[in-house]
């Protein structure tokens, strides 16, 4: 049973292509046969993120126009078994493809692949309509920003109108430090607003830039926290339940250590004070608050 998932967002620059590349790698590493399809005709980028840009001969439009066989246009990623890229055309525009074409293409791909991931272009026009045409479900990528969430909401509405069942949400570029001090929407805020299930949280991390520079997605790197976030999303995509969300806390700072230590010492003072009837009112007040919190 194979499945076609469209990775979409509405807004540009929130991480659709990075997410598609990493989820493709992560699913392939799990032993799945995966085709990642770049549906951004005229502005292809998935090839670059995957580091496969030098191997393109044919593209999606060539396949649709019958200039080559589908097999000839698929580029095999040599770093992992089972991962193939179908690149977008760079010199054509999105009107070269119709939703019908995409449905046929996905149908063909389903004969050979377990998962087909479609990297949707930004926007809600033709490219979006093409991308969702053959999809069985959608993953919506957003970031904790007003503009990205607004666009995600619009896309969720359009997915529902297109009868794509239950879109799932990836929150990208999450910054624990900003969330902690109340300057970034947290997971619960976003879920309250968008009201769709969460499939993953990806931290804002330099790995994304470094891996994009190298054309070597973070999902390949066992030590990368971004890679780990995507590997867990991939597990959830395959139906694994009980995959915990990664800890997105920043490593403890000196301030944090001091704070914890001072909190502890107040606790100790409180403990000691309990056996001493006479204690300073200030310490008593602090100690009671400690107990209460």
């Amino acid at each position: 049973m194979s499945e076609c998932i469209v990775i979409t967002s509405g807004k540009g620059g929130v991480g659709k292509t990075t997410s598609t590349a990493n989820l493709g790698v992560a699913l392939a590493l799990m032993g799945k046969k995966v085709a990642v399809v770049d549906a951004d005709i005229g502005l292809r980028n998935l090839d670059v993120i995957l580091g496969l840009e030098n191997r393109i001969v044919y593209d999606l439009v060539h396949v649709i126009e019958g200039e080559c066989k589908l097999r000839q246009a698929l580029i095999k990623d040599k770093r992992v078994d089972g991962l193939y890229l179908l690149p977008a055309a760079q010199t054509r525009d999105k009107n070269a493809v119709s939703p019908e074409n995409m449905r046929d293409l996905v149908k063909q791909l389903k004969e050979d692949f377990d998962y087909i991931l479609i990297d949707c272009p930004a926007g809600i026009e033709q490219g979006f309509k093409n991308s969702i045409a053959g999809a069985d479900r959608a993953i919506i990528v957003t970031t904790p920003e007003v503009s990205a969430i607004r666009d995600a909401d619009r896309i969720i509405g359009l997915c529902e109108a297109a009868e794509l069942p239950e879109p799932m949400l990836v929150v990208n570029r999450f910054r624990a430090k900003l969330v902690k001090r109340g300057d970034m929407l947290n997971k619960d805020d976003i879920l309250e607003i968008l009201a769709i299930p969460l499939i993953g949280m990806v931290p804002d991390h330099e790995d994304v830039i470094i891996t994009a520079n190298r054309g070597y997605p973070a999902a390949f790197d066992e030590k990368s926290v971004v890679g780990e976030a995507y590997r867990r999303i991939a597990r959830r995509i395959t139906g694994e339940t009980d995959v915990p969300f990664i800890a997105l806390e920043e490593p403890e700072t000196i301030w944090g250590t001091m704070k914890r230590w001072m909190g502890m010492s107040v606790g100790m003072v409180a403990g000691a004070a309990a056996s001493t009837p006479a204690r300073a009112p200030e310490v008593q007040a602090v100690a009671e608050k400690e107990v209460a919190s």
Partner: protein
Amino acid sequence: MSLFDRFFPPRTGGSKDDAKSRLKILLVHDQVDLTPSQMDAMRAEILAVIARYAEIEATKVDLRLERSTDGVNLISSVAVRRVNARLAVAGV
């Protein structure tokens, strides 16, 4: 609260509260597709109807659209000074 927090209180009311309240309003209006001037017109018309039956306090009127799981709701709270029985009966 630890001793540390007493000396260096954590910042409250960060910018995310602004983000959240702006988003809530924004998304309703995206969905409803009414311009601010249309909203104002609707508000004025609704209040005019109420004013035919009751004396209302114009400064204590809250009328807004809110999103819930079943769609968009029009929430209104209007302070009524007194219901004008004579006008209501006459149906003016």
